[in-house]
Each structure stands twice: as structure tokens, then as C-alpha cells.
């Protein structure tokens, strides 16, 4: 390959459309005769629904139709499960998924009960107030630690209790090994719920063409192909009759890969039922209750160590909050289990969880997807151990890192991709060293901190390591085609939500085919153009789809060389591809433009040799044998205001290793954004419920997304340990920024407040919560 675009900081192909306001988002889809939908949602966390009276709502001018569960007939059934649980010995899994509309019982505030279709959204919302619904209130199950108590009401009446799942996994024999420990530390850790709050809310537009018998759906989904397949089946259609388009998406972060949302089941059904195109756009209040949440876990953890700080083993038992249903299987708690051990060589590990149902919004992946909680537990245990053993915090980490010659490293327990967890590659110590150096760790501890403390300032440092399992299977695919105008079209089945796929994928193709990056046009998320794929999640887009595109582009390159060799009467190895032409290596003046070659590859008359495929086009797939494990280190210096307990981040350093990097500019952006979400999660964002299960923080005034003054300048360092599991040697990076921020923040704040003796074992924090912790530590409350 002549030019190397791979690895360059290239500006994005998609930006001009976005910057000029020309990019199509779901809410921008306008169709003739479009009707608008508003959902009637439960105002109660747990209630029987005795009667729904739609009469007066139907009388309102402009209301077209109203549907409740009863109107759906056979279409009413619990949604299919997204991710079935992996085969783990002796596990319990009580599959309970959300129905399209609640029937007989509402299980969380915001659960859809009826759908109102009207000439405008304004009218549809007016009609919500005309609805008469008779509820009988039940007491809600809100506290995950008591969800399994005998006296708790049942959320799903056909189950004996509120247990969603129970899993125990083991590596080695913790109980026996811990007997030889010099130190055992036991603590409880809380990691509370949060929400992704993409700036674009969800939305769906559906249009049924009665003449064509085809359904078109524009959906803010990260996984258009699975949505198409699932809806076709549920609606009794062939896959060829359903087209799902995920156009530009205003941020995904996980919740937009949840499926099937109730609205996703209903809106297309309404379009078919009425024979009219319909649109539903979620508003911000709906987003807070209707879009999946994440995080909610309570851990009881213990770590056994030798006197010199070597980890003997870890035992962790936790309760995981599922919300009212469990559509996403066990992905989140399994990620917690499988990320907890992190970069460390731990031979004995027992991990057990109970996933419990609560009367709250359902829980599905949000950037990090269960990994944060594990990293928080492990990193905090190490901090506490370091203190007890009198070992430096960085040093205790260093002593336990998996050595570079131990890869592939086996953690034995079952991961979210159904296979035993194996880290493919890694070299952890250089990342740690680089982070320590970038943040001037020694100098800060030895000189700067004592000096600032002497000045009466409360400053502290935190450092944490993590791994991120990325790029899991099963597979993605792509079709690459050189078009008659010499430009290259690439189509793939994943969705895109701002990750720069239109550029990073174009770089891969540009290298293979010797064209400019701007001449490669990528289409994602249109199921009519590419049929196969699983979607964008688990930091897998670049790894899995990127490699599929690379394979397809290689095939096209072969076709180009073969045909050009025939046309120019030379051998393939005499040819070179650059600047959109294929030419003789020794004489660039003899060439064929790729566009002309593409036209010649599709003859209109004459005969071709048997087996000849038309065009310069190829489709290929890539499925890694297992995920690629990225790693990194975050470090921060913070200052706490002793009067207000506001925390100011003075420095933030990220050192990251995600193997070979396609576009470092885009990678930096991913890290900045992830870290900002981590900071929000650690200190600003909190979902507050009252004792009846009403979410109180349902506006952006109450749920604080960090703004430009809350996020510091983030300094980034890179290490490169390529993955051996894919030809491009890449690992995913989408979630890394968000994963270790909680423990870094907690550790740094704890260090800053060391004279108060606070031990931080929870996320999120806030100024008022820090004040409370200080009061508690001082025995004042």
C-alpha cells in the first residue's frame, strides 16, 4: 500500500453535513400525512391498572386513535430478550422482559400504558390529560438490598420473589488461599444509578407503504439490523419488507442499543395499523424515565494480601439492580465480574451476584456497562490495603500487574461473549510509568502536596488502572465497491453515533485501494444496503466492522489488480494503486483510472469467463475469536474547597493502550468524552427518587450534566500493544475514558481530605455528600 492514512489525524468526512445543519437526524424526517404520537405513561412505580377509559380523549379534535394493551391482540407479548444469558453452571435466570404496553399492572414510573395518535404532538399531549385510568397502588420495591426480603411485594407475580438472576463464578479457591493471608480487608461499596442523557433523545418514525407492502423505520438505534430482524418477525413480515434506517444519531452511549424499547414495538405497529406514517420523539422528561439507566450495585468485597502487598485473592458479592425487567440478560453484572480483577494477577477469585427486580426504569448498558463498578471495588480495595500496609498507592499496583510475558492471560470465569475470559495481549507497566511521569507523581507527593497543605489547601492525587474488554464478536460485515466515478462506496450494518466511522473506516479503505479518504463514502445503519450485523456496542465498531471493511477492501484490491493486469497485459505484481488509478510501477504514465476499470468490470455485451463476478465489489465478514483487551491508567490531582466541598480538578492524565490506532484525533475525542462522562458520574449526576419511586431529577436542571467549566483539560498519553486477534491489531476505545474515573476521583478527594480521615466507598459524590462524609468521619452525626 502506497499511502498510509491509517494512524493519521485526519479531519472527518461527516463534519461538513453536521456543521451546516444538513445531516439527517430522526426528528428531521418529515413525511406527508405524518401523524404524531404521545405515550401515556404510568405515574406510579407499582400499581394495578383496573380500567382505562379513552372516550373523552378520543373526542378531542385532532386525536386520530388511541391504543392500549387490549387493542394489540396477539401482538401483545413481552419483548424478545436481547442477550440470552451465557451457559454458566448452576445459575438462575428469570427472564422477564417488557411488554409493548403495560397490561393489568405498571411496574415503574414512565412505563407506557397507552399510545395516543394525533394530528400534532401538541394535541396528542393535550389528550394525555383526558385519559381516565383507574389505578390501585401497590407498595413499590425500591431498595435493592431489601428486594429479596420475604415481606416485599412481588413485581412479577408468577415468580416466588424478586430475583432476576443469581450467578457464582470462581477462579482458584479463595477461601483456602485466604487462610495464608497477612491482611484481609472487607468493605462495602455503593455505585448508584446514572443515565446516559445523550443530547438527542430517542425517536422513531415509521411508514407503511400499503402498495409496496413495505415498512420503513427511522430509529435512533445503535443496532439497526437486529431491530429490522426482530420487528419483521414480530410483525409477521419478511426481512425484505422491513427497512430500518439509523441516520445520524445524536449520541448513543449504550442506551440506544437497548432493544426492544416499548416504543420500538408500538410505533411501527401503529403505522401499519393506521396506514399512516407516524412519528414519536421522546422528550427530555420521558428520556429520564423511559430510556434505560445503568450502574446501581452494592458490593460486599474482600481482598486477601501478603504483607508486601501481593494480592492472594478477591471475594466479591454484589446485588445488581435490573429495574423492572431484564431484557439485556446478564451483560452488565458479567462485565462487572470480568473487569474487577483489572490489570492485576489474581489467582483466587470468587464472585457472586444477585440481580434483583425493582420498580424502577430498566437497566441496560451505558458506556462502561458494568465495568466501572468492578474497577471501583478493586481500586478502592487496593487503596485501603496500601494504607494499611504502608505501601505507596502506585507501588502496590505495580507489584500486582500482570507481567507482559503472561499473555494470553486466563481469568477463567465466563465473560459476556459466553466464553472464558482471556486477555489477548497487554503490557501494563509502561502505561503506569507514563501516567506517573506525566502527572509528576513523586514530585507531587514529596514536594508539592506538603507545600500546598502547609498553605492550608486541600489537594490530593489519585491513580487507577483498568482493563476494558472490547471488540467482541460475533461478527460484522461490509461491502466495498469502486463506483463508475472512481469513488468508493462502503456499506456496513453497524450504526454510528458520532464515533467518526465515516472517516476511520474510510482511512482503512483508502490505504487498501490507493484513493483519498474523502473519496470513500461510508454508509452505516441502512438495512436495505447491508443486511447483516449485530450493532455498535462494547467498543466493537472499529475492531469488528473495521476489520470486516479491511477484508472486503483487500478483496476489491485483488479484483482491481487482476482485471488491470489483464487489460494492461502485465502481471499483478507490476502494478500499483495510487491516487485513484492503477498504474505500472515502472511507468506511472500507463494507468487505468479505477472508475474506468469499474465500468469495464461490468460489460454490457459479449461474454465473460465462467465464474466472473461483475464490478469491482466485494463483501466480507470478520468475527474475532474473542474480544481484545485494552488497558489504561488515569491519574488526577484535585483540590477540595473546605468551605463548599466543591472539587476542582487541577490536572487529569489518561494513558491508554488500545493497540494500533486508526485516527488519533478521533481517539482523543473518544477519551475526552468518556472521561467527561466519568466525571459527571462521579460528582455531578445523580438520579434522585422519592420513597414512592418517583424520579425527582427529571430535567437537566436537576440532573447535572457537566458543562465546559466542570471538565478540565485532559492530558493524554498513548502506549501501543497491538491485538493479535485481528489483522489491523486494534482494540476498542469507546468506553475507556469513562471506566476508572470514579476510583481516581474518590482516591484523590480522599487524599485531599486525609486529615479528616474520610474513606470514600461510593459514587456518585457531590459537595453535600462529601460534607456529610466528613461530618460522619469526625463523629458529628
Amino acid at each position, binding site marked *: 500500500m502506497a499511502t498510509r492514512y491509517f494512524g493519521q489525524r485526519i479531519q472527518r468526512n*461527516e*463534519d*461538513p453535513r453536521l456543521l451546516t445543519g444538513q445531516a439527517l437526524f430522526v426528528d428531521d424526517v418529515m413525511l406527508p400525512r405524518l401523524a404524531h404520537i404521545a405515550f401515556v405513561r404510568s405515574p406510579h412505580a407499582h400499581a394495578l391498572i383496573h380500567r382505562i377509559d379513552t372516550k373523552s380523549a378520543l373526542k378531542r379534535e385532532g386525536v386520530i386513535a388511541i391504543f392500549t394493551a387490549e387493542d394489540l391482540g396477539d401482538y401483545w407479548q413481552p419483548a424478545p430478550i436481547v442477550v440470552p444469558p451465557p451457559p454458566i453452571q448452576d445459575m438462575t435466570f428469570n427472564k422477564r422482559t417488557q411488554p409493548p404496553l403495560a397490561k393489568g399492572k405498571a411496574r415503574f414510573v414512565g412505563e407506557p400504558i397507552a399510545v395516543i395518535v394525533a394530528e400534532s404532538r401538541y394535541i396528542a399531549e393535550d389528550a394525555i390529560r383526558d385519559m381516565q385510568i383507574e389505578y390501585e397502588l401497590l407498595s413499590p420495591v425500591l431498595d435493592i438490598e431489601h428486594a429479596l426480603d420475604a415481606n416485599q411485594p412481588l413485581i412479577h407475580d408468577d415468580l416466588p420473589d424478586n430475583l432476576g438472576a443469581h450467578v457464582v463464578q470462581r477462579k482458584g479457591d479463595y477461601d483456602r488461599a485466604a487462610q495464608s493471608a497477612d491482611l484481609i480487608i472487607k468493605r462495602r461499596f455503593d455505585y448508584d444509578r446514572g443515565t446516559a442523557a445523550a*443530547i438527542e*433523545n430517542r425517536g422513531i418514525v415509521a411508514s407503511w407503504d400499503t402498495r409496496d407492502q413495505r415498512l420503513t423505520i427511522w430509529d435512533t438505534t445503535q443496532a439497526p439490523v437486529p431491530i429490522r430482524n426482530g420487528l419483521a418477525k414480530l410483525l409477521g413480515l419478511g426481512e425484505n419488507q422491513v427497512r430500518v434506517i439509523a441516520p445520524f444519531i445524536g*449520541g448513543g452511549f449504550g442506551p440506544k442499543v437497548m432493544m426492544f424499547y416499548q416504543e420500538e414495538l408500538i410505533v411501527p405497529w401503529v403505522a401499519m395499523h393506521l396506514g399512516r406514517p407516524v412519528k414519536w420523539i421522546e422528550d427530555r422528561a420521558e428520556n429520564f424515565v423511559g430510556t434505560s439507566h445503568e450502574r446501581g450495585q452494592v458490593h460486599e468485597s474482600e481482598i486477601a494480601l501478603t504483607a508486601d502487598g501481593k494480592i492472594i485473592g478477591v471475594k466479591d458479592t454484589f446485588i445488581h439492580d435490573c429495574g423492572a425487567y431484564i431484557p439485556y440478560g446478564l451483560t452488565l453484572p458479567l462485565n462487572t465480574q470480568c473487569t474487577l480483577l483489572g490489570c492485576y494477577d489474581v489467582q483466587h477469585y470468587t464472585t457472586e451476584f444477585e440481580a434483583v427486580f425493582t420498580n424502577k426504569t430498566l437497566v441496560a448498558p451505558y458506556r462502561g456497562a458494568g465495568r466501572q463498578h468492578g474497577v471501583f471495588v478493586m481500586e478502592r480495595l487496593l487503596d485501603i490495603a496500601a494504607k494499611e500496609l504502608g505501601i505507596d498507592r502506585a507501588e502496590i499496583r505495580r507489584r500486582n500487574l500482570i507481567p507482559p510475558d503472561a499473555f494470553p492471560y486466563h481469568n477463567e470465569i465466563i465473560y459476556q461473549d459466553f466464553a472464558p475470559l482471556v486477555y489477548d495481549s497487554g503490557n501494563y507497566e509502561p502505561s503506569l510509568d507514563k501516567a506517573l511521569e506525566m502527572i509528576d507523581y513523586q514530585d507531587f507527593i514529596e514536594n508539592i502536596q506538603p507545600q500546598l497543605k502547609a498553605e492550608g489547601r486541600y489537594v490530593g492525587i489519585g491513580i487507577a488502572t483498568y482493563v476494558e474488554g472490547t471488540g467482541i464478536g460475533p461478527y460484522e460485515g461490509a461491502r466495498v465497491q469502486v463506483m463508475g466515478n472512481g469513488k468508493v462506496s462502503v456499506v456496513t450494518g453497524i450504526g454510528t453515533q458520532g464515533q467518526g466511522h465515516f472517516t476511520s473506516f474510510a482511512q482503512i479503505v483508502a490505504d487498501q485501494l490507493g484513493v483519498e479518504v474523502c473519496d470513500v463514502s461510508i454508509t452505516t445503519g441502512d438495512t436495505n444496503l447491508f443486511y447483516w450485523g449485530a450493532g455498535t456496542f462494547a467498543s466493537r465498531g472499529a475492531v469488528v466492522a473495521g476489520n470486516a471493511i479491511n477484508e472486503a477492501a483487500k478483496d476489491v484490491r485483488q479484483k482491481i489488480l487482476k482485471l488491470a493486469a489483464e487489460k494492461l497485459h502485465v502481471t499483478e505484481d507490476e502494478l500499483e494503486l495510487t491516487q485513484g488509478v492503477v498504474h505500472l510501477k515502472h511507468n506511472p504514465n500507463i494507468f487505468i483510472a479505477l472508475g474506468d476499470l469499474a465500468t469495464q468490470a461490468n460489460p454490457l455485451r459479449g461474454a465473460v469467463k465462467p465464474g466472473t463476478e461483475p464490478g469491482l465489489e466485494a463483501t466480507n465478514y470478520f468475527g474475532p475469536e474473542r474480544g481484545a483487551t485494552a488497558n489504561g491508567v488515569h491519574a488526577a490531582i484535585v483540590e477540595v474547597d473546605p468551605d463548599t466541598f466543591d472539587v476542582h480538578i487541577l490536572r487529569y492524565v489518561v494513558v491508554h493502550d488500545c493497540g494500533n490506532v486508526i485516527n488519533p484525533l478521533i481517539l482523543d*475525542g473518544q477519551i475526552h468524552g468518556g472521561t467527561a462522562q466519568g466525571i459527571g458520574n462521579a460528582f455531578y449526576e445523580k438520579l434522585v427518587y422519592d420513597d414512592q419511586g418517583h424520579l425527582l431529577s427529571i430535567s437537566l436542571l436537576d440532573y447535572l450534566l457537566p458543562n465546559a467549566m466542570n471538565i478540565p483539560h485532559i492530558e493524554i498519553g498513548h502506549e501501543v500493544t497491538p491485538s493479535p486477534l485481528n489483522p489491523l491489531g486494534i482494540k476498542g476505545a469507546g468506553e475507556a475514558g469513562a471506566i476508572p474515573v470514579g476510583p481516581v476521583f474518590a482516591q484523590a478527594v480522599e487524599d485531599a481530605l486525609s486529615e479528616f480521615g474520610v474513606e470514600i466507598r461510593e459514587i456518585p459524590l457531590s459537595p453535600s455528600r462529601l460534607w456529610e462524609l466528613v461530618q460522619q468521619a469526625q463523629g458529628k452525626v
Partner: protein
Amino acid sequence: MIQITVIVNGITHTLQVEPRLLLSDFLRQDLGLTGTHVGCEHGVCGSCTILFDGDAVRACLMFAVQANGHEITTVESLTTDMERLHPIQRAFRETHALQCGFCTSGILMTLIPFLEKNPDPTEADIRQALTGNLCRCTGYQHIVAAVQRAAQLQQKP
């Protein structure tokens, strides 16, 4: 229904609207200017920011009828030619200041008057100016860099 006359991106529109129609919905639905985005409809996210007689305001916090007789500028006014971006748009592209791009129109419209009044802003000024616009993707760092770059580009004759 009430008749209003509004100048949007230099074009005069006279339309009948419901008194309760939000200005953001008017621009997007009645005029088809979908570059103005809606992220919260309660005045916090800033995605719907437009210029109202030259000042950056939130279109979701106004009714269309309040725009009667006023001049509105939306992101579509910056350029219609993707090959010749406005200097602020160019700066955003060069520095990778957008990811999903949903917040971007509002941020651009906030920055137009900001950079007019502050042609050479400090990082602190820029961060302060951006506090009314939420971006969930970028962590703001590249946006800050974009504003610095835009200031440079605009100072060049």
C-alpha cells in the same frame, strides 16, 4: 391562529401559527430548518440556540408569535456550501470539535456573537461562554480548541 411575519436568514415569512407553537418547532416544522436541534425543551442544553436580532437565545423558550417582526438567524445561514465552510465551522472540523454533532448548531450560534464581541478570548472566557451549551460527546476540550482556532482564522484578513 395568529399571523406573524418573521425574517429568517434574510427571508421574510408570513405565516399563521398557533399561539402556543414553540419557536423551535416553528423553525423546524413550519420552515423546514431542521439544523436547529431540540435536546431538552426547557432551556438547559442549548442545542436550539439561534440568533434573535443578533443575540444568542434558546428557541425552545420562546413562542413563534414572540418572533413577530423580528429577525432570526439559524445555523443554515452560515453557509449552504459544504465546500466553503464558515471560519468557525472550519475550525470545528480541523480540531474535531464535534462527534455526534447534535449539539453543534447551537454551539456555533452561541459562538458567532461571542467571537464578534471577544475576537481574542482566553481559555477561561471560552469555557465560560460555553457553559450554556451541553455537549455529551466531546468533553469540551476540542471545542475550546476550535474557538481558539476560529479566533485565529477570523483575525486573518
